[in-house]
């Protein structure tokens, strides 16, 4: 039995041994800890197993020290605030009730503490994980920071290198420029030097030439002569003339004449050019004015410049009218160019406005129906091109086939057969349709006849009816007819009667048409000249009969059908 020191409960640290059921526990605490729940230190109290519980319990209180343990317990409990477990303060009798209560209280306390401990542990875990997470983040951020710092350093280094390179290049450029300047200076100085030397040498050379000339002239070489058999006449046949002042003057005159004629010619050319250009400008001006939207701009301009502009415009108008532009005086020229410039500016503004409009239409919603956006237009054109392509290909293949057919070399019998076989199907179909057509024609004839008969009958019946009516009216009239309402109702029966008659005809017609194997399309409203509104219900159309003609291109026929029906409905 472990003897535990009573009273002074000091810290007991027991070395941890693997829990295999022995009464090992790790308990570190201090006396100061009294309030349940707030523990600054790790309090771990593994609940001992039942076995160890017994040993634990037996370790504290044995049969010998019951009283001591009781008094100890009492002391402890009272210090903790529990009521005493003894019945009397210093008695020996246990107050069972208070003991039980104390136990209960202690249990409750224990539970509370356990809960608190759990909470604390939970929070502790949470905080621990948070801390881990934060530490990880911190570590990562630190890494990133490191990396960025390194990068910055690298970039700075590069920047520095580039700057030095730039500086070097600038320096080189400057050096080159300086060198170029230097070379130019050298060239110019050398040039002057050479010129000077050249002049010197030339003077010497001139002196030599003079000397030589003198020598040559002095020698009076007989050799320098011209030998000619006989002198030739002048090219223009005239005699030679003496050189006098008059001739000099004449020469001068001639020269100036030549120059003048050249100038005149040029001036003529320039005048012609000028006139043409002026004409062109005038034309342009007129055309520009016609292009511009009519009166919008003018009032604005007028308001700006006031009376001055109108005067100028008037003048220009006058000038235009009288063709005074042929004058080439300064003011006219200026006016013309100014007016052209003005008109051109207006035209430019107009075009720019149109451009803006177009671009707005482009980007924004298509408010104008007749303005097709570019994409639509392009799509359309693409579609059309595709269609064209397809049609072309079709035409080509058809042509090829036709060609093949015409060119295929084979002997007569086979060609005849072949020809026949291509058309056989067609022929049969054609015949079939002819048959149908004839049938329908017959039917049609019959119907027509019946119609005419019906019409005749109707006429007769009408006549009879009219007579009856007349008789009836007479009767009515004679038998004091003041009731005008009857007279109204008289007219309507005829319409109904008429329709009744027509209605009677139709069913027959229906039957007849149903017999023929004509192609029957969707119900179609018959546009009868007599009474159109009442025919909405008739399922047949007489135009069916006309469809008996054989179509060579079967595919297109249905469309025609649809179309024609469609047309007739409208």
């Amino acid at each position, binding site marked *: 039995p472990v003897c535990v020191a009573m009273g002074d409960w000091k810290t007991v640290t027991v070395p941890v041994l693997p829990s295999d059921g022995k009464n090992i526990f790790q308990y570190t605490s201090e006396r100061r800890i009294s309030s349940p729940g707030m523990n600054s230190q790790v309090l771990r109290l593994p609940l001992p197993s039942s076995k160890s519980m017994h040993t634990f319990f037996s370790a504290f209180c044995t049969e010998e020290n019951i009283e001591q343990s009781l008094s100890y317990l009492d002391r402890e409990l009272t210090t903790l605030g529990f009521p005493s477990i003894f019945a009397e303060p210093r008695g020996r009798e246990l107050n069972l009730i208070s003991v039980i209560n104390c136990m209960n209280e202690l249990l409750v306390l224990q539970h509370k503490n356990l809960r608190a401990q759990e909470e604390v542990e939970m929070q502790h875990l949470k905080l621990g994980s948070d801390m881990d997470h934060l530490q990880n983040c911190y570590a990562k951020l630190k890494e990133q920071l490191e990396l960025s710092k390194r990068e910055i350093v690298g970039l700075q280094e590069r920047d520095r290198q580039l700057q030095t390179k730039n500086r070097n290049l600038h320096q080189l450029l400057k050096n080159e420029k300086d060198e170029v300047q230097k070379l*130019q200076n050298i*060239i*110019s100085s050398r*040039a002057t030097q050479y*010129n000077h030397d*050249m*002049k010197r040498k*030339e*003077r010497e050379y*001139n002196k030599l*030439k003079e000397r*030589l*000339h003198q020598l*040559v002239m002095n*020698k009076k*070489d*007989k*050799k*320098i*002569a*011209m*030998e*000619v*058999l*006989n*002198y*030739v*006449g*002048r*090219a*223009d046949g005239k005699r*030679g*003339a003496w*050189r006098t002042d008059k*001739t*000099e003057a004449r*020469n*001068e005159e*001639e*020269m*100036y004449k*030549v*120059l003048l004629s*050249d100038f005149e010619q040029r001036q003529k050319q320039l005048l012609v050019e000028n006139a043409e250009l002026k004409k062109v400008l005038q034309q342009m001006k007129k055309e520009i004015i016609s292009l511009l939207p009519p009166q919008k701009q003018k009032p604005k301009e007028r308001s700006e410049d006031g009376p001055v502009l109108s005067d100028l415009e008037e003048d220009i108008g006058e000038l235009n009218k009288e063709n005074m532009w042929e004058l080439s005086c300064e003011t006219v020229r200026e006016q013309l160019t100014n007016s052209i410039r003005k008109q051109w500016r207006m035209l430019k503004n107009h075009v720019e406005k149109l451009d803006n409009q177009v671009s707005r239409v482009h980007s924004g919603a298509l408010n104008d129906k007749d303005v097709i956006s570019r994409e639509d237009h392009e799509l359309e054109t693409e579609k059309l091109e595709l269609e064209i392509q397809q049609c072309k290909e079709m035409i080509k293949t058809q042509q090829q086939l036709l060609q093949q057919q015409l060119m295929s070399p084979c002997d007569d019998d086979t060609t005849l057969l072949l020809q026949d076989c291509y058309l056989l199907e067609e022929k049969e179909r054609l015949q079939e349709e002819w048959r149908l057509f004839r049938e329908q024609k017959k039917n049609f004839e019959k119907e027509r006849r019946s119609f005419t008969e019906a019409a005749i009958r109707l006429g007769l019946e009408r006549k009879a009816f009219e007579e009856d009516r007349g008789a009836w009216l007479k009767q009515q009239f004679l038998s004091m007819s003041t009731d005008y309402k009857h007279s109204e109702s008289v007219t309507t029966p005829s319409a109904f009667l008429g329709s009744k008659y027509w209605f009677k005809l139709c069913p027959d017609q229906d039957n007849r048409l149903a017999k023929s194997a004509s192609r029957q399309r969707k119900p179609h409203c018959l546009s009868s000249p007599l009474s159109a509104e009442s025919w909405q219900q008739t399922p047949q159309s007489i135009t069916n009969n006309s469809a008996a003609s054989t179509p060579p291109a079967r595919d297109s026929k249905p469309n025609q059908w649809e179309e024609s029906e469609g047309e007739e409905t409208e």
Partner: protein
Amino acid sequence: MNFSELFKLTGLLSRFSPNGKCLASCVQYRLVVRDVSTLQVLQLYTCLDQIQHIEWSSDSLFILCAMYKRGIVQVWSLEQPDWHCKIDEGSAGLVASCWSPDGRHILNTTEFHLRITVWSLCTKSVSYIKYPKACQQGIAFTKDGRYMAVAERRDCKDFVSIFVCSDWQLLRHFDTETQDLFGIEWAPNGCVLAVWDTCLEYKILLYSLDGRLLSTYRAYEWSLGIKSIAWSPSSQFLAIGSYDEKVRILNHVTWKKITEFEHPTTIANTKTIVYKEVEKSPSAETERLSLPPSRASASSWFSTQSKYDISQVPVSLHHIKPVADRANPKIGVGMLAFSADNCFLATKNDNIPNAVWIWDIQKLKLFVVLEQLSAIQSFQWDPRQPRLALCTGNSKVYLWSPAGCVSVQVPMEGDFQIVSLSWHSSGDSMALLSKDNFCVCYLEREEV
């Protein structure tokens, strides 16, 4: 196209007469005058020495033959074959000789350009022009032959003197603001004289007939400047080809540049047609092989046919890099010519030696580039229609017109390397000249 047979020739001296009836050619010291259509020898003259230069007089009645070594000019008459005239410059020497526009005076430039002597065939008078400039084009006559401009240099300054050709009176004398005048040329209308400076200085001056300076044009400084110029036949444009491989066109109204034509080595514009000469493999007509092979067929085996192919743009042209430290480098636009109808300009950039560039002047754009297999030797426009003939030193002549271009093999035995050509004034025939021979090519009306 018909080709005549080959005739002997020396010094590329073959000239059509201005009236188009005769063709004069030189063989050593002999002058042969032939009829143009039949090439029959009309006259044969013998000179005293090897002829260096021949020139017809403007009325086609006389021919002068200049022999620089001996300093002699001999003049022959077609009307009177036994008429003779000899001008001896003696110790003065002779470097150049030409006719005056009236066909009755001969201007001789003595050695060292000491003076120009004007000899008259009508009178006994002699005139001298002092201090002529020693440059390529120092004498220029107006098209109507009325005036003559002479470049002079006194005291290290350039001057221009304008003379009246009828009586050789000095009309105007003025100095030019050039460093070292290189050439002068009249506009076809005879009213403007273009004066340009040495290639060290890009400067061209335009003077009116009465000596006033109309305008100066400088494109840039320091780099080598003008290499060649050409007036358009209507005098509307002045094309200036320079060492920077560009042609600048000035207009006659303001004398300002209206456009620049560049000559890059790569043509990228899709609107330009590039004709490239390619060799056709010689047609091996094996059935006609015969042993021993005749001379004609043998030559035709060795001479490859060629034709033009249209190359797809972009095209890179064969170009050469000129030697940097030599004078007069082979770079820049060295040849310029306007077509007779003023519609086209043909140019050659010397560092792209195999190509001729044809520009449409109405649109001021590059029209056609002809790329040949060898370097272009010379080209010349037909005097009547926009048709360009060119030769590249082989035995083919190439013709271009807006309708297309064609390469024609001259059917000659042996070697015939065409280095120069000249059109007849009617545009119906042209003379093809090689170092030792020449032949005349007759074109039919419907050709090209």
